[in-house]
């Protein structure tokens, strides 16, 4: 009896998330809401009818170790698929594009117009995230181009403190997925600006399960649900609702990560 069968029999699946990552998942009115929540609801209705989901809210650093320790069955959060993670965990089909943009302060829009202007500046992102890796890659690229490179890359436990540091001027830029930046720009108008260029290669967000035989069927069921949402237009509708834009995602498989 594998995990999927157990979930079906127990009528409950335990999932973990980090509800500090608007608009994918965050708390409003005491409830966790967001793109992932809506999408999960749709997927479960098709793949696991009658199963209830129990959601744990954990700091991001606790998600992958917790999954490994079998504290829960899946991570339903926007986890960027990178090479190292994909080698250790089972990712579902992509749920959103994770391509990274650069957030700056509105008052520095005159001086920082492109990633190349970040020479000698301080940039930040979340600890252990793909965004941090992207900043490191950018740093390398800038140096190869003969520039000074980034002055410092600061790693944060969560993005909120990074945004706050950007606002107070301790940071000059924050690397973050474009999907997250839209809502931020909307709720603090006039404070931040987003560079038109992205950094790093195209990458994707997906949900994560354990990479073992026990979980395989569950991942397959989830993938079927995501593919259906993609095909019937539900996904586009939800993306418009939460990101204010829609994106084209591969339907058949998660592309091999390039980082």
């Amino acid at each position, binding site marked *: 009896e594998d995990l999927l069968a157990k979930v079906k029999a127990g009528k409950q699946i335990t999932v973990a998330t980090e509800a500090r990552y608007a608009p994918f998942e965050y708390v409003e009115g005491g409830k966790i809401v967001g793109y992932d929540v809506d999408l999960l609801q749709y997927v479960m209705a098709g793949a696991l009818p009658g199963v209830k989901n129990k959601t744990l809210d954990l700091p*991001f*650093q606790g998600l*992958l*170790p917790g999954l*490994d320790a079998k504290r829960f069955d899946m991570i339903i959060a926007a986890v960027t698929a990178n090479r190292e993670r994909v080698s*250790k965990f089972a990712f579902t089909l992509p749920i959103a594009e994770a391509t990274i943009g650069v957030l700056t302060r509105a008052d520095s829009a005159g001086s920082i117009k492109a990633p190349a202007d970040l020479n000698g500046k301080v940039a*930040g992102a979340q*600890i*252990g*995230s793909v965004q941090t890796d992207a900043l490191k890659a950018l740093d390398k690229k800038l140096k190869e181009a003969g520039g000074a490179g980034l002055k410092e890359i*600061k*790693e*944060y*436990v*969560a993005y909120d*403190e990074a945004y*706050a*540091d950007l606002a*107070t*001027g*301790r940071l000059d830029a924050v690397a973050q997925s474009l999907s997250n930046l839209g809502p931020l720009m909307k709720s603090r108008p006039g404070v931040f600006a987003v560079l038109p260029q992205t950094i790093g290669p195209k990458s994707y967000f997906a949900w994560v399960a354990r990479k073992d035989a026990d979980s395989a069927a569950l991942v397959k069921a989830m993938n079927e649900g995501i593919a259906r949402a993609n095909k019937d237009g539900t996904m586009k509708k939800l993306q418009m609702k939460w990101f204010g834009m829609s994106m084209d995602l591969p339907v058949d498989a998660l592309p091999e990560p390039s980082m």
Partner: protein
Amino acid sequence: MQEFLELLPRFAVAALLTLELSLAGAALGLAGGFLLHLFRLGGGRVFALGCGVYVWLLRGTPFLSQLFIVYFGLPVLGLRLSAPEATVVSLAFYSAAYFSEIFRAGWAAIPRGQIEAAHAFGMTSRARFCHIELPQALAFALPLLANQLILVIKESAVASIITVPELTMTTSNIIASTYSYVMPYALLIAGYWLLTQSVAWLAQQAARRIPFLRTPS
């Protein structure tokens, strides 16, 4: 074993930073707490009330909130501190509240009769303070002070949230990049344990050096 050897230098550096931050914070806090206590002793009602409110505010709210107010709030007033600076300053303000309470307990523990004896033999108030009250109050408070220092060391872990690469932050970093958490946590525990136990040990040694504490009264 391999992992252990690889991680050890990073943890040593991080532990040193934790020690520096908390020692600096506690030293300033100790001085601040002593000043607060002096105000309370000699400053009349207004000072006593002020000190009381200070202790109530700083002791009653989580350190994280105070750190945020120093780190994100002060820039609004034009004072921008780096993350380690903000940590030290917040630790100082925070621990000053606790230290002043410890001094208060120390002074309260001096038997009235001894102060009267000092009066009766015509000692000046300075002589009384320095030679009768201070040594006894400090001897009494020594274990409490050590305890508080240990708490400050542990509280400094909160600084990880504002990117100070101390022990806790380093552990998070390593876990996030390697997904192995047994060895990093073991090293984290060992790090804090070593730091706090050495404080406890030093305090014990100090207490042993105080001749009149050696006898159970």
